[in-house]
């Protein structure tokens, strides 16, 4: 087994996803400790535009073929399986995402290499790699000692920082030699776009987020009033969207948007990992939830264990007062 760190790259509509860069950054750190190399495996079609973003890697294994233009678990899985057959990196990192999750399990079964999901930390102790994963909705963490064979690890996006500066290296590009892939049983048909939204919540500086604690659609108006007073927009966690109280474009979380506003106010949101993932890098997070043990309080900057429905109108009033004072 080499001391190399491999990263499976993810890209969407011509841009590399942040998770890939985060993993390259972390991979760099891990590889350095063991004098290994950082290798990125990039599958796609017309990927030349992405190569420039991968300067942080030592090696980039590329397969630039039309069948990789869109992600299908089968095609990517088959290609990666072939690549990993004769390679024995120390660890293969991928995002715990729509792409990575499918590949993680498929590859683990096909190659026989162990795997780990929901990883949020990677540490080296005594030369061994330890991964910490979150389970039970974030209520517990499990620290796992990775074995001496190649391990596949899916990492929760946002667990590691995106490198600030673009790396200045010049990675070696290697074409992946792939035998003819068997006739695929999975084919991409089309991309379904989200319904045209009113606001792009990723660009709004103040977000008033509502969760199940808001109880019913009528109470949304209170959140909207506060958002208006603060010059922001209302967004929500998945349960609210599933109920149909707000459109998909307002969903924050793993399967929704990732936002980094100046102010993120969470009302009646428990802070499940899927939601946390989408907003944890907000500059100021203030959470309001009647349950003082809600997971969101572990990560928020400020919190109040009061009833969101009670607090909302009071906050709006105070903000309006402050606005007036400021204006005068």
């Amino acid at each position: 087994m080499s001391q190399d760190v491999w990263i499976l790259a993810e890209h969407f509509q011509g841009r590399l996803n942040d998770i890939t860069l985060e993993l390259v950054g972390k991979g760099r750190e891990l590889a350095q400790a063991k004098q290994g190399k950082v290798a990125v495996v990039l599958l796609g079609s017309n990927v030349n535009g992405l190569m420039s973003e991968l300067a942080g890697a030592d090696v980039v294994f590329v397969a630039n073929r039309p069948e990789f233009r869109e992600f299908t678990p089968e095609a990517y899985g088959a290609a990666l399986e072939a690549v990993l057959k004769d390679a024995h990196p120390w660890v293969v990192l991928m995002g715990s995402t729509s792409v990575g999750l499918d590949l993680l399990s498929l590859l683990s079964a096909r190659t026989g290499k162990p795997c780990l999901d929901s990883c949020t930390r990677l540490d080296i102790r005594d030369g061994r790699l330890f991964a910490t994963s979150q389970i039970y909705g974030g209520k517990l963490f499990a620290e796992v000692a990775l074995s001496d064979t190649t391990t596949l690890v899916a990492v929760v996006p946002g667990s590691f920082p995106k490198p600030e500066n673009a790396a200045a290296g010049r990675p070696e590009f290697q074409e992946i030699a792939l035998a003819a892939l068997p006739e695929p049983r999975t084919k991409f048909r089309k991309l379904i776009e989200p319904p045209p939204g009113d606001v792009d919540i990723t660009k709004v500086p103040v977000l008033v987020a509502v969760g199940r604690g808001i109880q019913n659609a009528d109470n949304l108006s209170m959140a909207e009033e506060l958002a208006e007073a603060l010059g922001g927009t209302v967004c929500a966690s998945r349960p609210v969207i599933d109920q149909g109280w707000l459109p998909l474009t307002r969903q924050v979380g793993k399967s929704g948007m990732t936002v980094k506003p100046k102010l993120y106010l969470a009302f009646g949101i428990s802070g499940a990992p899927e939601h946390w993932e989408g907003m944890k890098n907000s500059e100021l997070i203030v959470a309001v939830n009647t349950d003082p043990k809600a997971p969101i309080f572990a990560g928020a900057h400020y919190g109040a264990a009061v009833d969101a429905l009670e607090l909302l109108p009071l906050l709006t009033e105070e903000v309006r007062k402050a606005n007036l004072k400021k204006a005068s």
Partner: protein
Amino acid sequence: MVPTGAQLGPVPAWAILWLMFLIAAGLFAWRAVFLVRLLMLGRPEMRWDRIPERIKRVLVYVLGQRRMLDEPLVGIPHVLIFYGFLVFLMATSGMLLQGLYPSLTIPSLEENRYLGPVVDVFAVLVLGGLAVTSFRRFVLRPAGLQLTWDATLVNILIASLMVTYLTAEGFRLVAWPGERAVWLPFGSGLADWFGRSEALRASAPGLYQGFWWAHVSIVLFFLAYLPYSKHLHLLASPFSVFFSRLDPPGRLPASAAHAERMGAERLEEFTWRQLLSAFACAECGRCERACPSHTSGEPCSPRQLVHNLKVQLLQYGPALLEKACAAADGGEPALIGGLIAPNELWACTTCLSCVEHCPVLNEHLSVMVDLRRRLVERGELDERLQEAFGNLQRYGNSFGQSERKRAVWTQGLDFKPKDARKGPVEWLWYLGEYACYHPTLQQTTRAFARVLHAAEVDFGILYEGERNTGNDARRAGEEGLFELLREKNTATMQKAKFNNIFTTDPHVYNTLKNEYPDLNHGRHPVYHYTQVLQDLLDRGRLKIEHKLPYRVTYHDPCYLGRYNGVYEPPRKVLRALGVELKEMPRSRRASFCCGGGGGRVWMEEIGEAHSRPSESRVKEAASLDGVEMLVVACPKDYVMFTDALKTTGLEGRITVRDLSDLVAEAVGAEAAARPQDKAA
């Protein structure tokens, strides 16, 4: 002199009358039989028991017209019209009989010196009553009262009956002045007036006959028409009252045993008494006016529900009757989704106002619940309700909190309440889920526990063994869930050791008292805590340290007041506390529901509610001069009204306090819970 003594053309007059009578009676009988056969489509239900009580009900509600006086403006005229009807029933029958048998001498009421004036005066009273009711119906147009040709025609028929009678009387007295021996005030007044005209004097006998025939013809027409009109309530209501439910209203009828499906939707799945509601309904609209959901603009209307049942029955019943002879099948379109929208059913809070105010003792609630049961059976319920049911099933509470946390509220007490499961205790305090889990109410629960402790009441609780009693789940239509909860709770209580039960939650009170048969049979009487407090105060076991100087009003909870008649104990307790009590206009059995019952707290808001029931109620409380506090005795009331204070902006004007909380304050129990928002 007898109007039918002579010939009418070639035929004796009495023969014509006989013909008319037979036709009218025949039409009437044919229709009546048809309607009864429609009722027989319904499934059987035993309502022949306890006959003396049933007779008493007929005397009180039909003869005594008790419920009419709930709305005096129309009630008094209706009473007059009703008694007028009874009087005229006798008078006109006499007239008819005489007409059919002209050769016999049948004593007539008009010729009786005592009864004659009665009939005469009643004719005018009825006209006066009609004038008021017509004014109300056609000019004032109260909600729930339909303007139909049927109603108009009925009014016209009754009025013309009175007018023809009086006019006939007048002409009779002109034609045969000897009859004046019997003093008929209005009849003779008319006679005097007619008598002034020579022409009228001359034709008086003929005119008398004419108006006599007119009167009798109208009556026969009315007889034939009656079973086709809403005036059918005249015939059907004595039966609907006689066959009304004697069980306490808090005991909901179970779903039909051995039925394949829960609840009812097809006509044949309702009981004959439920179908009878359709015919007994006079479409007076009292139920609708009393309904809190309807008043708030929600799509719920008890009157409409019964009306739609009638429409369905009349429209599709006949086909079912025919097929009953041939082969049994449907052909009946679905009631729900057809005439009745699901929202109309979900909007009901089960407050019982409709049943309480119905003059013919109809049971709108049982029809509604049966329809809900069918919706639940089909899985057609909103997600929040599904979630609540799932939580009740799994955790024994609708909040979705662990059952292990049921007694967490006891932390914060400096004593440990006894565990009735290990017992023995005198009193089992059945708390209910709101008292145990709701964050604000937990303080109130603790305060009351301290009151009991200080009064040295020997009480215990079931700790984690306590589960939701199922009152609201049952009324939301999940009969199976109710039975499951009842089984579990009964098993838990059977193992526990206690004598009596009391509870701070009227919903718990209602179902334990009325729907848990294995508890009853006198062995474990169930009380509401106000009854217990009243007793403690009476016996001096509870000392009021400081009288409370508040000016308050009290809201009668639906499940305590209207359902179970407990009106006085809370008031006695309040008076003992020293507060000044002012009653709201809608109090006691007219109390206006907070909107949270029947599982409504677990559902989405329905329709465009422009003023929720809870908001209407707090406004009513705030409208009372000088009243600063609304006292409640039910946790749902507390939650609904404190919310309503915020949404109506009345927070500074009035506070909401639970009665037990006031008791704790007056008794000086330490750290009596004080609400976070106080009156300014």
